[in-house]
């Protein structure tokens, strides 16, 4: 759990230190890609908490979602339709759903943890 966070931090630092910026007209694609990446990340966390995590699904989902989102945005620009809005909507909704599920799972775990602790306490007292 600590390692991904560490890598995330390294990535952020790397980005800030290189001071890299892309042309204004491509920033739309990047923002969509970032949204897709965040969606995948939270999906991965959720799957981990559900104990359903599959690395292949995670990796492929990440790259596929990111490129598909960018492609959709590109297509939208070419056709004159704001297709990137569709991507933002879809990813946004999923992001919040995932976050809600993660929250619930964490709460469940917390309650379970508390309960077992209590039980342990009681059992130790009895003993």
């Amino acid at each position, binding site marked *: 759990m600590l390692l*991904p966070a560490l890598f995330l931090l390294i990535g952020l630092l790397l980005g800030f230190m290189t001071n890299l910026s892309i042309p204004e007209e491509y920033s739309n694609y990047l923002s969509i890609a970032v949204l897709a990446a965040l969606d995948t990340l939270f999906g991965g966390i959720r799957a981990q908490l559900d104990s359903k995590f599959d690395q292949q699904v995670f990796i492929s989902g990440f790259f596929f979602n990111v490129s598909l989102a960018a492609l959709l945005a590109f297509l939208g620009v070419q056709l004159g339709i704001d297709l990137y809005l569709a991507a933002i909507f879809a990813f946004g909704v999923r992001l919040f759903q995932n976050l809600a599920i993660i929250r619930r799972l964490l709460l469940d775990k917390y309650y379970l943890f508390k309960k077992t602790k209590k039980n342990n306490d009681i059992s130790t007292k009895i003993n």
Partner: protein
Amino acid sequence: MKNVFTKHKLMIGLVCLLIGFMVATLFNTNKQPDSRDTRDTWEIRTALQEEQKVQQNLYQEIAEAEKTLIEYQEQTEHQQIISLKESIQELREKAGLTEIVGKGMIITIEPIFLNEELQEYPSINAELLQLFINELNASGANEIAIGNQRIINISPIRDVNGKVYVNNSSIGNLPTDIHIITKDIEKFRDYIEVSEINDYFALENVTISIREQEKVVLPKYDGAINLQEVHVGDIPEVGES
């Protein structure tokens, strides 16, 4: 420790690294600095001075207006009416609704013929005349009349069917007289004589001649001033800057 860097965790870490990098890049892209103020001290000082001048003028105007207001308040009704009439007269003069006589000059715009056989009769266009009026104003003309048309703040100068119209009436063919009243005739004359406008006139085969006159009579503007679209602005509350 050996188990920390399994392939599984490394891949996830890599993805996280990528995400971090993308977020940072996006952040950098969206946080491009706004256009910087690159003026040096001298330029800023000049700008400041200009603003101060504007401010001073405004203060002066306010002081004058307040003086008039106090005058109104202190006078009896009869005097009030007299001073109101005076104000109206003053404003009419300012607006160009009265005939005005003063020291000034007459500028004649006349054609020059370089080759009489091949050249058509020269004419000027509205744009050139506008430029000339601007030049006259810039060099310190107080009042201007083209032909017998007084130039006021809203006087239009237009090309209509190949003729130049001022105040909705044609100024006719060249030569045309422009009557000007100015305070400093010498300065005005020098200014016009070295002005670029002479070159522009020469391009149209036109030249200007200036003659000073002790008494120049400018006609009044006799059209109606359309104030339909003029509204009283919002009067700011006291204390508002």
